[in-house]
């Protein structure tokens, strides 16, 4: 199969791919309602298959290159698939494939809305391809176009539930922030263009070779960081993810934020200097991102918002790896490059798996209960046992807990930090130790956050009466989730294979110069093999003890009775510990970051007969509350000064046009416009 895609026929393969894509897009519009989802799934599968062939070829040959004519303006568009692009392409294909299968089941409930269903499937197919293009294209203009298609298609996917004003608001928020990101990227690309005269990405390398690296990297980092959701740049995530349908949130959180990470990686491959400084900056920023994300994840009651914040946390962890890798590049220490970048790349894959798994299972819950407020739920494990199990596996894996794949990548990053401790520079040693502590707090709070979420949604008994009895999700929604679990387990138990691929990426794109026989690589890959083995034995051990327990307790008498109520005989399900009360101690402790907004009217002194009243509390985002919202407010006040331009009189608008034409005319005549 690998032989099928060679350097010579990669362009041919690409043409088939484009053909299938176009035919598919038209086909989805034409076919009957019932077939649309299946056709979309088929197209996604075919596209995934073809582009994965390209990607695998890219990994093996490290550097597949072909040109697609892009007209007179852009010229020939270089498509380059090196191992780095390929890695991300494979992740995209995997996540979108599971997403589209899950989406078939998820959208069944929405069948009546015909027009939007067509649009949805068309956009989903386009969305996948645009992300693939982002990974392949290496020409600034074409890249920005692909990037824009990606942002817009995902925007309209988010706006699926377009009758809800909150969704519209979240969509606009997303759109504005994505264009802020595009603005940064455009500035960066134009900057490179003016210095080097080329739109080819190779120009970035030329630029970095002869200019200061710091500032251009910062501009790129801001642009890509907005997509990835680093702290301060993250505020679209907690709005857009809950608003989107769950399979879209799964794909967005799984891969679209990773496109930001891809961008950062891509820029790093061109860097020539200032590695250590940039590494320190990225590392510090990422630790803070991780802490901020997970703290917020712990307190929110909307479980999809919680997952969105958790994405920010994981971006932080990936960023820590990138920071370590950059420091490794600066010091020319292969082991740091391997552990840092390798850990980050593996975590990108891991996170795309367990985060989409979590979003899918959370989506099943939403589909059955029609609420995202976990404090309304409870006891779903009895109604939806498989979904509960899948969510539990995702929750354990995302916390980096051993028998699952999250531990492998976090372990690599931890090892990177520990290897980086031995530095001549005392500041760097301290930074590394503090980062280790930061990672451990992130891990701790993530256990806190996920025990709370899992416990509140699935355990105990139902907190409120639901409109209809929740049932287990349909098979077409469960199967993709089991597929994800399988891939997750394969990473946990056969990490060696994935490490070899990562090594190819590091050698090809980051000049790590590490042979497979390299002593550091062998050391860590054998450590990971040990971990896999021990994790396996651990599971076997748990099974054995459980079997033993069963054998013993079977002979004993066991009775079922109500939960011990501490002497109180009439407990109700409303008296259970809720998610809110679970996290109260944490939010009280960190109230300088986690801003709680309470709304209630106080009891007045002259109120003799109190009437029923409402109390509500929610948490505000620190950055949104203190930085973004005030900034927008003052910007609005300033812009209001120019409101008189837009006075609604057509005459005035015609006048503006005439004035403009006059300026251009006079300017041309007197040769003023230079």
């Amino acid at each position: 199969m690998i032989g099928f895609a060679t350097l010579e026929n990669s362009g041919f393969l690409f043409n088939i791919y484009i053909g299938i894509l176009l035919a598919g897009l038209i086909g989805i519009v034409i076919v009957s309602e019932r077939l649309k989802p299946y056709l979309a799934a088929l197209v996604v599968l075919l596209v995934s298959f073809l582009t994965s062939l390209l990607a695998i070829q890219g990994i093996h040959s490290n550097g597949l290159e072909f040109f697609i004519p892009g007209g007179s303006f852009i010229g020939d568009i270089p498509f380059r698939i090196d191992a780095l692009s390929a890695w991300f392409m494979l992740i995209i294909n995997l996540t979108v494939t599971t997403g589209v299968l899950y989406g078939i089941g998820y959208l069944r409930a929405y069948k009546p809305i015909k027009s939007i269903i067509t649009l949805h499937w068309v956009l989903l197919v386009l969305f996948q391809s645009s992300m693939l293009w982002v990974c392949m294209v290496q020409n600034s203009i074409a890249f920005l176009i692909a990037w824009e298609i990606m942002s817009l298609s995902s925007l309209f996917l988010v706006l699926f539930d377009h009758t809800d004003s909150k969704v519209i608001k979240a969509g606009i928020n997303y759109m504005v922030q994505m264009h802020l990101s595009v603005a940064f990227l455009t500035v960066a690309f134009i900057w490179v263009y003016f210095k080097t005269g080329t739109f080819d990405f190779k120009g970035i390398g030329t630029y970095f070779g002869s200019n200061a690296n710091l500032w251009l990297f910062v501009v790129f980092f801001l642009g890509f960081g907005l997509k990835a959701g680093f702290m301060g740049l993250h505020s679209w995530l907690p709005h857009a993810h809950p608003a989107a349908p769950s399979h879209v949130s799964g794909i967005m959180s799984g891969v679209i934020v990773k496109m930001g990470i891809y961008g950062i990686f891509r820029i790093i491959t061109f860097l020539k200097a200032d590695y250590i400084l940039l590494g320190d900056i990225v590392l510090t920023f990422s630790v803070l991102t991780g802490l901020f994300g997970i703290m917020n994840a712990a307190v929110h009651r909307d479980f999809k918002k919680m997952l969105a914040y958790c994405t920010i946390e994981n971006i932080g962890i990936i960023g820590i790896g990138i920071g370590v890798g950059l420091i490794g590049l600066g010091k020319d220490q292969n082991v740091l490059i391997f552990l840092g970048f390798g850990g980050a790349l593996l975590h990108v894959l891991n996170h795309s798996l367990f985060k989409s798994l979590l979003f899918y299972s959370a989506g099943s819950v939403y589909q059955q209960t029609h609420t995202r407020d976990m404090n309304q739920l409870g006891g779903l494990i009895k109604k939806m046992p498989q979904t509960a199990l899948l969510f539990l596996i995702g929750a354990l894996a995302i916390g980096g807990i051993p028998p699952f794949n999250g531990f492998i990548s976090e372990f690599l990053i931890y090892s990177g930090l520990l290897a980086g401790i031995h530095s001549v520079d005392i500041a760097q040693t301290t930074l590394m130790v503090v980062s280790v502590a930061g990672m451990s707090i992130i891990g701790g709070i993530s256990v806190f956050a996920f025990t709370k979420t899992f416990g509140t949604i699935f355990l105990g008994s139902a907190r409120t009466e639901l409109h209809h009895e929740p049932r287990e999700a349909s098979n077409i929604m469960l199967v993709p989730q089991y597929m994800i679990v399988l891939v997750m387990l394969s990473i946990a138990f056969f990490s060696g294979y994935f490490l070899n691929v990562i090594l190819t990426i590091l050698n090809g794109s980051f000049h790590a110069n590490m042979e497979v026989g390299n002593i550091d690589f062998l050391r860590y890959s054998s450590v990971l093999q040990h971990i896999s083995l021990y994790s396996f034995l651990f599971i076997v051990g748990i099974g054995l003890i459980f079997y033993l327990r069963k054998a013993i307790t079977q002979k004993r008498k066991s009775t079922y009775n109500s939960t011990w109520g501490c002497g109180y005989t009439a407990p109700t399900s409303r008296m259970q510990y809720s998610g809110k009360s679970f996290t109260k101690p944490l939010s009280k402790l960190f109230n300088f970051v986690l801003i709680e907004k309470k709304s209630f009217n106080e009891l007045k002194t002259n109120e003799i007969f109190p009437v029923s009243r409402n109390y509500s509390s929610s948490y505000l985002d620190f950055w949104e509350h203190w930085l973004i919202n005030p900034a927008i407010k003052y910007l609005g006040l300033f812009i209001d000064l120019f409101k008189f331009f837009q006075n609604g009189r057509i005459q005035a608008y015609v006048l503006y046009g005439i004035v403009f034409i006059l300026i251009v005319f006079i300017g041309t005549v007197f040769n003023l416009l230079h």
Partner: protein
Amino acid sequence: MLSLVLILIASLFFTGIIIRTKSIASGRKGPGIFQPVKDVWRLFKKGSVYSETTSFVFQIAPVVYFSSVVMAILVVPFGSTKGIISFDGDFIFFAYVLALGKFFSIISAMDTGSSFEGMGASREALYSMFAEPAFFILMGSFALLTGHTSFFEIFSTLHLGSYITYALGIMATFVLVMIAMIENSRMPIDDPKTHLELTMVHEVMILDNSGFDLGLILSTGYLKFAMYGTLITNLYIGELSMAYAIPIFFITQFAFAVSVGLIESFMARYRMSHNPQFIFALSSVSLLIFLGVLLVLGKFV
């Protein structure tokens, strides 16, 4: 292998000694030191009562909790003998395996749908989360000092450089003792003898466990204590020959148990809201160890 055997032996009498110390300190004779083990044995033979609200999580959680601590014990070395599991960075594995057990004990408490058990679960999750950075800074500092990242190599090369490391060892002992107290929900953080559910942490989480499961949870607690005791012993024995190391092990475990008993006899529990501050202070002690390591390595010149 040796460490596993020693920990198993130590866990048999550890909690007994704590209880005996407390009895003597309060002027009572107290039960024999093997009473806790007998209690567990009796529980193993008893039937159970399960809550109707619970699911399979409640059934499997005690087993996972127990296995996670056993797995963590396998990582712990003893002086010049490795643990059964030993690799670079095994202390990360150690901490995260323990986290798995904690995860399950927390969700099993939530599984009962009780108004009290969630409270304990929330507190346990919060306190153990704060103990993590102290442990990681401690181990990170030792990794810096020794240049190794596995328990065995760290402990066996800890005292090769200078004698100042013994001073660091004493600070590390404090940190580890306190982490052990937090992880086992003992005195300054939690009072195992309290009779009010509102003030409990660990005890309230296991209100609904009975019979075999309760026995499993209790024995996990004993093992955990002995495990931390072994880590503390490891701070001192280094490459000593077994003829010295094993007596030192039992003396340390004994002293540790007695001091836990004394702390519980003469200290009041902290106010719930002050616990996080206390645990933060623990991280500061760890940072002091880090500074000490930097001093030893002469990085401040």
